[in-house]
């Protein structure tokens, strides 16, 4: 082991970059959330009015709730779809395991806009899916509700973040000792009860880790709801974006942003607590994994 000084010198530029490009901007954002705007001028006197406005506004309260609702929905959906996939890769795939995981992540590198463009081609009223179904004779009229609906948003969000859920679950399955399941069945547990009482509890850290990743990315996703959601596409992050653009109310936008960050931070601490109490978390934080 080398002296700790080299480590500190290596870490210094990283600390500076994160401080200058991430921490400092967020702190200024926090300061702005206490300012006010009058016509086109920003008045730098501390006030809590912005936060009072958010708490008093039904629209913002609803948008915040909606964001967390979608986050939760997509986390659950990706968990249900991804659980068997992660299990299969961890326990049934023997050769090319990393390649299987990589193969799952590769479609994400096509880029947000291209991905959404492809989904619009797929789901549109005169798009690929509708014309395919009409061509084969499965339907007579195109299904209009496919694109520009809340359903479309949820399909594309599931697509976007499923691989992250699989990644989190896969780590948990890799850490799961198969002998525990054998012991359960030796002791007379049926398949269902071995799953419910051994496998599921032991993969909870993976569910929480994957779920948090998916949750935070869904909450912060600006493009997907806007481009495939149609009228349902207004989200809390698009509201923040508007306040910094056309609506020009930076302080209110900052206050909404920090409200979101504060709630996310609270949820993260709770999730970290759950994961760190488990064996997987202990292994990860001690660096032995």
């Amino acid at each position, binding site marked *: 082991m080398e002296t700790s000084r080299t480590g500190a010198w290596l870490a210094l530029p*990283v600390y500076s970059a994160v401080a200058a490009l991430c921490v400092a901007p967020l702190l200024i954002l926090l300061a702005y959330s206490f300012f006010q705007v009058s016509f086109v001028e920003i008045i730098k006197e501390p006030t809590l009015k912005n936060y009072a406005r958010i708490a008093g506004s039904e629209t913002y309260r609803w948008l915040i709730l909606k964001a967390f609702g979608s986050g939760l929905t997509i986390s659950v959906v990706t968990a249900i779809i991804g659980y068997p996939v992660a299990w299969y890769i961890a326990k049934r795939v023997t050769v090319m395991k990393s390649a299987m995981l990589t193969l799952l992540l590769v479609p994400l590198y096509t880029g947000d806009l291209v991905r959404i463009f*492809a989904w619009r081609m*797929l789901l549109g009223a005169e798009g690929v899916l509708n014309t395919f179904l009409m061509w084969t004779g499965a339907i007579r009229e195109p299904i209009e509700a496919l694109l520009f609906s809340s359903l479309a948003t949820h399909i594309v969000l599931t697509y976007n973040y499923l691989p992250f859920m699989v990644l989190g679950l896969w780590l948990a399955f890799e850490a799961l000792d198969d002998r525990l399941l054998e012991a359960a069945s030796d002791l007379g547990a049926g398949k269902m009860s071995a799953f419910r009482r051994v496998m599921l509890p032991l993969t909870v850290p993976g569910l929480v880790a994957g779920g948090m990743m998916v949750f935070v990315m869904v909450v912060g996703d600006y493009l997907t709801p806007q481009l495939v959601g149609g009228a349902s596409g207004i989200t809390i992050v698009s509201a923040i974006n508007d306040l*910094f653009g056309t609506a020009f109310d930076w302080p209110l936008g900052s206050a909404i942003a920090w409200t979101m960050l504060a709630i996310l931070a609270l949820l993260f601490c709770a999730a970290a607590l759950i994961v760190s109490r488990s064996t997987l978390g202990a292994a990860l934080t001690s660096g032995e994994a």
Partner: protein
Amino acid sequence: MRTSRLPLIWMWMVYGFMYLPVAVIAIFAFNDSELVAFPLQGFTMRWFGQVLGDGRLTGGLGLTFLVSIPVALLSTLLGAMAALALTRYRMPFRGLLLVLVLLPFLIPKVILGVAQLILLSELGIERSLLTIIFGQTIVILPFTTLVIASVLMRIDRRLEEAATDLGASAFSAFRRVTLPLMKNGLLAASFIAFVLSSSEYVLTSLLSGRSQPLSILVASDFRFNMSPALDALALMIVAANLALIVIGELARLRSKS
């Protein structure tokens, strides 16, 4: 024990779902029809010709290289430093470093973008290619750090110890043992960073001033239009991105043994 075929069928369905959009892009870029719809009308290359003849796009592509190459180099360098500090050295506040490196990944990009915008306006800095480069570097840093750390964790530490035991200084042990072993990780990280940078939209659009890289130029087309020529462009972007990622991943996985 007889395992049922159900999980395997499920796997095929999920992987099919993940590759469905890619397949659709690939098929309709060669379809000889103005309409992006079934039934298919025959094979053509003319949409590619149409895209390559568009001077506006080639200019945007040039700017993309001007942004994404510096971002790839910078975020790989910082990521290597962070990964080395995290995996190789006993140091105080190791947990804090990990949290700070991952932090930009956890902040929604719109929020980080507007925060950087306020900072720029407070400091009186004009938006330019430089602001895009710095803004992107910080959100890509978590990815490069994790990729390089995953390679470093697999390198046998005893090799470095052997080098120092045999009289190599810490620096020359790094240069002659660690660096050659982590080379593939650096390559993979920089390729991933380049791809993430060239396709980044939200942050780029907030931080770009008058000079607009390809991702911004084509954004409104991709957002609101639909044509086979656009699809041909999408396929070219996808092919370039996936080629880089696959080369990078092959390099990273090869460094395992």
